[in-house]
């Protein structure tokens, strides 16, 4: 089936007139409608919108206009990216009925490339979580086993690609929210360099860490999606002016001579034996493909989780202040809420879930008079040390390899009552956000329970090309990416 063949194949077929965008769109809508009741991966499927976009692609083709790089490719975007006229909730009660009047830049670029947006995907509320269980609309489920988490926060975006409802989806990654669910669902997930993709229209969680990126069922599709998304945006002052290289031609160049750093000390503790075995096997494959393995040290990586939870919560406490019931979103019943203060309290109490409240309180505390130096400032100093760790490592190697997660996908409910355990699920992913580096998660095996395992490669600033090339090399030597979950 064409949906399983990936974005490049669909684009080529649509461009050649072998199939219409409308026909592909109908396939995707059918599969999404059939699988979503079991997966809960979409917050919202918008068939009208999708069919309109597909018809527009077909019209352009009939008129002989050039097909875009994603012409007719069905896509889904995480529900924290604004789509004009389409409900955008961040899986929060406080935005349950919010309809943005504008498109996020990433969404507008997909549209301009001819992609067909099927719907908005489930996630942890405001992207805060690692299991999707913090969604106000219930957790999405792992297509490989619905008792397990698809990961988070972009769990829905990973699940819909794994289930082959769409070949490409968008997520956002603040501490691992693309890479961890990609690993848990057995798909490719890329967190670009900070500033590579515009954040305009992404509902901010932690502004200095957030980055929009693609999920795909293979590396080539991920490269194609990134080439559509990347590049400067006058609406985002933190979006880099760095030129975007053509990522596709170099994908097949191989990795002979590539120096792969392995932080042995850092990845030695607390890693599940199945994950360790898959990781070690992947290192062997990389070496067989011509790469050199080099031991590196990231002495400050063990502080990454506490640093992350100070910086991210501080920024979040401020970013989420705008959800106050005044201009949009949920507002507490004015007859019950007497004073302005009460209106604020009740609106935010009713609108936000427990984890979001916990992080707002943590962040407020971190920035409070008398604590700022001890927490926020200290965390920023450690962030600088961590940046130096990576600079030193990249003086000797071209990429750094780690397992994406310490464990295979855990059970829904397994860690829901233990936030600290949940936070540790991000131990290997948060560093890339703290230092702004690009990182990719690639399928690298399965656990004994037939659940996917991922490997993470981190690269130099703006060097996504090397990560994709290494990923494509792994793909040619393994078949993990081609495995599809039983539901699909």
């Amino acid at each position, binding site marked *: 089936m064409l949906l399983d063949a990936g974005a490049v194949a669909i684009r080529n077929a649509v461009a050649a007139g072998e199939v219409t965008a409308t026909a592909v769109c109908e396939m995707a809508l059918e599969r999404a409608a059939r699988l979503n009741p079991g997966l809960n991966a979409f917050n919202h499927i918008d068939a009208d919108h999708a069919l309109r976009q597909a018809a527009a692609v077909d019209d352009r083709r009939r008129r002989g206009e050039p097909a875009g790089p994603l012409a007719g490719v069905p896509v889904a975007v995480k529900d*924290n*990216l*604004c789509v004009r006229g389409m409900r*955008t909730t*961040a899986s929060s009660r406080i*935005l349950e009925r*919010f309809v*943005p*009047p*504008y498109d*996020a830049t990433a969404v507008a670029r997909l549209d301009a490339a001819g992609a067909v947006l099927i719907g908005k995907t489930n996630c942890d509320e405001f992207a805060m979580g690692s299991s999707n269980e913090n969604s106000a609309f219930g957790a999405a489920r792992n297509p490989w086993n619905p008792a397990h988490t698809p990961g988070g926060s972009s769990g829905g975006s990973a699940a819909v690609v794994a289930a082959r409802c769409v070949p490409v989806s968008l997520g956002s990654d603040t501490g691992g929210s693309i890479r961890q669910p990609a690993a848990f669902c057995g798909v490719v997930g890329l967190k670009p360099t900070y500033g590579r993709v515009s*954040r*305009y*229209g*992404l*509902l*901010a969680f*932690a*502004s*200095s860490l957030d980055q929009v990126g693609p999920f795909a069922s293979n590396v080539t599709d991920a490269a194609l999606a990134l080439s559509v998304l990347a590049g400067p945006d*006058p*609406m*985002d*002052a*933190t979006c880099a002016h760095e030129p975007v290289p053509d990522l596709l031609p170099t994908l097949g160049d191989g990795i002979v001579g590539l120096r792969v750093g392995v932080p042995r000390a850092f990845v030695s503790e607390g890693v599940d034996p199945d994950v360790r075995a898959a990781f070690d096997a992947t290192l062997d494959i990389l070496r067989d493909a011509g790469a050199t393995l080099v031991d590196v040290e990231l002495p400050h990586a063990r502080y990454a989780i506490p640093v992350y939870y100070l910086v991210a919560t*501080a*920024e979040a*406490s*401020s970013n*989420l*202040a*705008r*959800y*106050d019931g*005044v*201009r*949009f979103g949920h507002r507490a019943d004015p007859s019950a809420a007497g004073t*302005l203060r009460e209106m*604020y309290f009740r609106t935010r109490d009713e609108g936000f879930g427990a984890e979001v409240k916990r992080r707002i309180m943590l962040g*407020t505390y971190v*920035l*409070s*008079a008398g604590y*700022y130096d001890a927490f*926020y400032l200290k965390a920023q100093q450690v962030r600088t040390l961590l940046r130096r760790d990576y600079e030193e490592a990249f003086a000797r190697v071209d990429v750094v390899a780690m397992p994406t997660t310490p464990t295979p996908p855990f059970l829904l409910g397994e860690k829901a009552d233990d936030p600290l355990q949940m936070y540790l699920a991000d131990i290997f992913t948060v560093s890339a956000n703290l230092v702004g580096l690009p990182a990719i998660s690639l399928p690298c095996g399965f656990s004994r329970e037939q659940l996917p395992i991922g490997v993470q490669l981190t690269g130099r600033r703006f060097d996504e090309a090397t990560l994709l090339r290494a990923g494509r090399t792994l793909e040619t030597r393994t078949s993990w990416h081609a495995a599809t979950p039983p539901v699909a």
Partner: protein
Amino acid sequence: MRYEPVIGLEIHAQLQTQTKAFCGCSTRFGASPNSQVCPVCLGLPGALPVLNHEAVDLALRAALALGCEVQPTSIFARKNYFYPDLPKGYQISQFERPIALGGGLRLTVDGAERWVGLTRIHMEEDAGKSLHEGFLDSERRTYLDFNRSGVPLIEIVTEPDMRTPAEGAEFFTRLRDVLVWIGVNDGNMEEGSLRCDANVSIRPAGRDAFGTKVEVKNLNSFRYLQKAIEFEIERQADVLDRGGRVLQETRLWDSSAGRTLSMRSKEEAHDYRYFPEPDLPPLVVGASRVEAVRASMPELPAARRVRFVDQYGLPDYDAGVLTQSASLAAYFERTVAACGNAKAASNWVMGELLRVLNERGEGIGEAAVSPESLGGLIQLIDRGTISSSIAKDVFARMHATGAAADAIVAAEGLAQIGDEAALRTVIDEVLAANGDAVAQYRAGKAATFGFLVGQVMKGTGGKANPKLANQLLRQALEQG
């Protein structure tokens, strides 16, 4: 006990940009509510700020005009607090690293000079407006207008260098002049584009340590500023005299009651939880940019005052008055260009022109008489065509009708009688009709000469050229 007041000011000035600080919306004042808004200035989810560099250039202008040190790198910060007209729940401002440090203004108050230093200038955005009044349901509801949300501001913070309410008012006046002069701010306090808060404390005369300071807000005119400081000094002195302690607090000036009222105590003060704004990179201002702004600056009031003394030979006082605003100085210079008589131009501008404008409550930009017309009038006086006293009437008519001076003089026959034969005829008539006075003059009573001159002027309807009339009358009396 005698106390010495210590006063510092914090002035918020809107920058006169076309568009807002962080989005492309218009900054025009007075548009219908919420008509100049977008996702960015409404703080919609996902919207991001992008710095308007026109605002930076205007902030740099202010910094250079006030002699500040421009900082090569400054950092935007978020000031977090909840208020309905603050859409994002934080204001983008600058905190630890503002765009400019130092600088100041020299004042002359009651003949004494005083230097008022600046602590800093930082950039920030304005909030929207809460409309608590004027709607049918205003008792139950507050309406919000976000047109002002995101309009760029600078906050200018002075050192505690002022010692009297008059110095406070004078500083604010001079500062306003500078900001308006360099095109940074429109000086409009009624519309709120220029706002002032005062920090006031008192200490026993002769002591160095500062007293507890009170911040007084809502001082939106020079008069209120002065009155509020006066009130606050007396209030604090009263508290201390009665053995009390001044509380550190924020007070609000109530102009109708003529007093300050407590707004919030130190304990109730906000913890703004400032931190660097992650959505905006550090603002880097290179030396070449500073120089470009400096090169585009108009002449500053202090420099122009010196030039007026040197170039036009004006007294320092005149130069001071004429350089109060850019437009007044420009009016003066155009008048001089038209007539070539700087002292006369200065007298007319400072005298009749400002008097008429003040009477009507008009600004120099609204003057009905153009500088070229005023120059024409001065030329008529200098050539002896009209007398100075007639000229005042002509000026009034110019103001009323907009006509040129020479046209009015011609139409109304106001030119002086400079024709000797015509004057002799009048003089002969006056001498014939006032035989007694003539006899007294000839008997040595010189004072009657003035009376006879008056009679000649009366006989000509005031149009006699006074110099010529004097000369001919004396001749006639001596010959007779």
